């Protein structure tokens, strides 16, 4: 162990996580094999809405290797409560009963009706075909506007409506602002439904604990701590006897931030059968059984002066809940409701969101969770506003930016942004992209009537992350507990254990928390072991999502390490027979001010603390400190992006040629890791803008039911990213850091779509809904032909088919 500590925070320390991952030695949930383990598989409904009139499992039960078949009758009584929704957005929100297995009625394609337990996966899969289920089809509703009509089929008969809730937010006086506004722009945007598609599907193993009668649940989850308490509660297991382990997890993006039927079933089955049980999801199953993202119809109206200065903004959303409410389903769009004002300084804002039930898989958090939707809405309408008042897109943004600030500042949505400097980010990205060169190239292509046009699209965005101040969680109906916990302990040898309540699944917390602890304690990152993901090893935590881990969890590590140094100082003072105030700590060494020869290393102090024989009067042995950090505010990273696309006007093909991003998340702990988060985030945003869409037909069948049809872009489809930063610390925490995990996904979709529309502006196209598929681009160009190019009216009649509007004869939508 070295005593020469250096500064690690801010450096690109190579990841400690990598060795297991590049050698194939990681422990994914599906790698877990326990003695006597059985496999279970779920029989899922092949239709979107139907009564279950009979289930006959006798043939399946007779198959060799099949140990049991259960239905709702068997399972639901073993549950203390159903699968919960934890976000009560309004008092009168309709919260349907949601059990692991559907009892009388299936309400979406893939709704589980029975479970087979067998000796191995292949037998279990075969057995599913021998369970006979009689269904009586019920009418299906898949489109929100249909679902809200009085004659619509009801997803949940008992509510008498498909409206889950209406959630309003209003500040200022929008009506007044709009009354005499010289300019009003009105737009409708579709946020299409997405399938999160982490490359690892879900999996769970539940193992009965023979000693305490409880269970260990290994599951591909982002939230072992939340899962521990919720699973314990709903399965009727005492909380202290439930252990949840997130082994290595292959991506989450919010899709593994949930309480799933299969996890509850695993516990119930393990209890019933007294053996470990495992379930592994197949991809086509994942597309039905794992939560979906986004799915909103957005109606926006913006009022402005004739110079384009915003006077007011009205937003109305319809948000598709799907058939049930998973843990955060109703709150995702309302959370985004705070962010439609974006990076713009104005006063009058109104927002209303209606959550709507449909016969589809439930939606919930997917990278950005409400904020990409908001950033898209405002950044798209800003381009429309720019066109309306005849101002360049970068200029209209500048005219409305906040002046830079570094103290909490009230927004039109009534929250407080923490620190901003949009001007700095925009200036930097314009230079990074050689903006003038791009416009020159664009002009050349226009003059030449080049069939491939160049598009330059902007996005200046912010987002709300670093969940969360507990008080705010309580205020919005989430209860509380937004803190994050850390323990930092010095071992007798002077090495360090950091226990964190965050649950990394690719974000590099082990490396980053090592850097943070190393700097505070004067050790090297290799001296630090970061423990996470297992509730037996990390008993306290609120896990990883919402770009919270660094700003809440990393800060907790920093604070706990600081407490260690504080206590160590007292011990050092005692050992050096000096006053505590005279002790200095640098490079891992405590010394007496002015007498550097009088010193003692942190390692020696740690050893002393362990031995407990030479400590100050009344001091307990050991050098281990906890911190539970409850952030006073969210953090608000921001940035300016430029997306450059080439649009082939003859085929509609869109190629993202370049992407320039200047992002500001405050001081950087590990620039390589931070950049990696931005790369991945932007790629997912581009994927939404240009490729992905979960398409349902009118019978509620998922047409894009596999990775053949649901398009995740590969390396040829994604451009090289050119990144830069500005650094504007946040006043929300002692490190001044902001989250960055979702920012790329939030900033990029509007940049991409703005770019495509920019490319086609001389063709009279003013909007295309995502994804900008060749078919939709080409259709938009055709529809705009003959109309007066460049005018506001050019695309009104030619608005291409919306995902929720048009179904062709073959039952597929959104061509």
């Amino acid at each position, binding site marked *: 162990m070295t005593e020469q500590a250096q500064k690690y925070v801010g450096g690109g320390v190579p990841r400690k996580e990598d060795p297991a991952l590049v050698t194939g030695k990681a422990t994914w949930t599906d790698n877990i094999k326990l003695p006597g383990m059985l496999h279970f598989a779920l029989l899922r409904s092949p239709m979107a809405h139907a009564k279950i009139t009979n289930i006959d499992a006798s043939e399946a039960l007779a198959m060799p290797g099949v140990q049991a078949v259960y239905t709702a009758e068997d399972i639901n009584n073993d549950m203390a409560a159903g699968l919960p929704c934890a976000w009560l957005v309004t008092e009168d929100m309709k919260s349907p009963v949601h059990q692991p297995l559907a009892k009388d009625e299936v309400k979406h394609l893939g709704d589980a009706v029975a479970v087979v337990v067998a000796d191995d*996966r292949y037998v279990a899969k075969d057995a599913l075909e021998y369970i006979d289920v009689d269904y009586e089809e019920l009418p299906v509703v898949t489109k929100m506007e249909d679902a809200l009509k009085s004659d619509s089929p009801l997803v949940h008969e008992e509510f008498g409506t498909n409206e889950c809730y209406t959630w309003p937010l209003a500040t200022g006086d929008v009506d007044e602002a709009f009354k005499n506004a010289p300019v009003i722009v009105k737009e409708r945007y579709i946020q299409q439904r997405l399938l999160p598609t982490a*490359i690892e599907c879900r999996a769970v193993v539940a193992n009965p604990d023979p000693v305490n009668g409880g269970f260990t649940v290994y599951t591909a989850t982002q939230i072992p701590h939340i899962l521990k308490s919720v699973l314990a509660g709903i399965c009727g297991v005492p909380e202290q006897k439930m252990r949840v382990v997130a082994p290595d997890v292959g*991506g989450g993006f919010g899709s593994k931030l949930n309480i799933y039927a299969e996890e509850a079933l695993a516990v119930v089955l393990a209890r019933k059968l007294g053996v470990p049980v495992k379930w592994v999801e197949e991809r086509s199953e994942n597309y039905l059984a794992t939560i979906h993202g986004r799915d909103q119809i957005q109606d926006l109206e913006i009022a402005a002066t004739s110079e384009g200065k915003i006077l007011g903004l009205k937003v109305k959303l319809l948000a598709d809940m799907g058939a049930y409410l998973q843990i955060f389903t109703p709150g995702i769009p309302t959370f985004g409701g705070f962010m439609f004002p974006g990076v713009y300084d104005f006063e009058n804002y109104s927002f209303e969101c209606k959550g709507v039930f449909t016969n589809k898989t439930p939606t919930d958090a997917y990278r950005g969770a409400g904020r990409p939707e908001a950033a898209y809405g405002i950044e798209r309408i800003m381009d429309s506003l720019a066109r309306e008042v005849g101002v360049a897109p970068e200029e209209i943004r500048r005219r409305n930016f906040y002046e830079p600030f570094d103290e909490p500042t009230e927004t039109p949505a009534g929250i407080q942004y923490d620190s901003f400097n949009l001007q700095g980010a925009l200036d930097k990205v314009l230079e990074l992209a050689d903006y003038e060169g791009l416009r020159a190239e664009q002009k050349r292509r226009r003059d030449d009537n080049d069939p491939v046009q160049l598009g330059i699209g902007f996005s200046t965005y912010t987002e709300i992350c670093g969940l969360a101040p507990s008080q705010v969680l309580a205020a919005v109906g989430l209860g509380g507990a937004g803190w994050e916990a850390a323990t930092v302990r010095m071992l007798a040898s002077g090495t360090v254990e950091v226990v964190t309540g965050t649950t990394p699944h690719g*974000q590099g917390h082990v490396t980053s928390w090592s850097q943070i602890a190393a700097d505070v304690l004067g050790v090297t990152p290799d001296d630090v072991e970061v423990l996470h993901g297992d509730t037996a090893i990390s008993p306290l935590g609120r896990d990883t999502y919402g770009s919270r881990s660094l700003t809440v969890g990393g800060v907790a590590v920093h604070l706990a390490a600081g407490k260690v140094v504080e206590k160590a100082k007292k011990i050092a003072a005692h050992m050096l027979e000096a006053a505590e105030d005279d002790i200095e700590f640098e490079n891992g060494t405590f010394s007496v001010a002015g007498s550097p020869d009088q010193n003692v290393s942190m390692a020696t102090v740690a050893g002393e603390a362990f031995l407990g024989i030479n400590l100050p009067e009344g001091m307990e042995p050991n050098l281990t400190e906890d911190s539970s950090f409850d952030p006073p505010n969210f953090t608000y990273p921001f940035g300016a992006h430029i997306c450059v696309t080439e649009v082939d006007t003859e085929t509609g093909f869109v190629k993202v040629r370049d992407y320039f991003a200047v992002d500001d998340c405050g001081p950087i702990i590990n620039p390589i890791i931070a950049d*990696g988060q931005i790369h991945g985030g932007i790629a997912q945003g581009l994927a939404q803008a240009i490729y992905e869409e979960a398409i349902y037909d009118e019978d509620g069948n998922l047409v894009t039911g596999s*990775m053949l049809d649901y398009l995740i872009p*590969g390396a*040829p489809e*994604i451009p*090289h990213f050119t990144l830069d930063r500005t650094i504007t610390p946040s006043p929300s925490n002692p490190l001044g850091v902001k989250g960055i995990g979702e920012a790329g996904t939030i900033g990029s979709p509007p940049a991409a779509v703005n770019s495509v529309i920019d490319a086609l502006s001389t063709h009279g196209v003013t909007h295309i809904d995502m994804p900008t598929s060749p078919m939709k681009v080409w259709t938009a160009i055709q529809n705009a032909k003959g109309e007066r190019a460049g005018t506001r009216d050019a695309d009104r009649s030619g608005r291409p088919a919306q995902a929720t509007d048009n179904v062709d004869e073959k039952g597929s939508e959104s061509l």
Partner: protein
Amino acid sequence: MRRIKVTVDGKTHEHEVEPRLLLIHYLREVLGIGGAHSGCDTSNCGACTILMNGESVKSCTVLAVQADGEDIMTVQGLAKNGEWHPVQTAFHEAHGLQCGYCTPGMIMATISLLKEKPNPSEEEIREGLEGNLCRCTGYENIVKAVKQAAGSPVS
């Protein structure tokens, strides 16, 4: 049942298997090689990519019985005497992985690519990896890793 003899990561194994047993499951379930991963069911994602007789192949689209007599290499067989393969090193140094789930397949696909094209351009790298999807990295650092690996001798 069918008797097969397959060499995997330098070791030869003999087993009786069902004809329908997929190679990916033979590797994972029968041989206990957890470093080969499954990510989809339509041969799109490439997470299951291994080398068969030195060429990249999607082990989810091969039956174990088809691998009878063949030589398979997974990511677990790359390191020699504890020393990583240059591609493994490059992925680590270039931060070409985040969650790591697509990484074994990505590494094997890269080895195969560099065999066919020892000095690929950025475009050739991206196209050469068209059969391997990643959701975390946005491919930026994967491309960087492949470029770095191309600069070093590849066995």
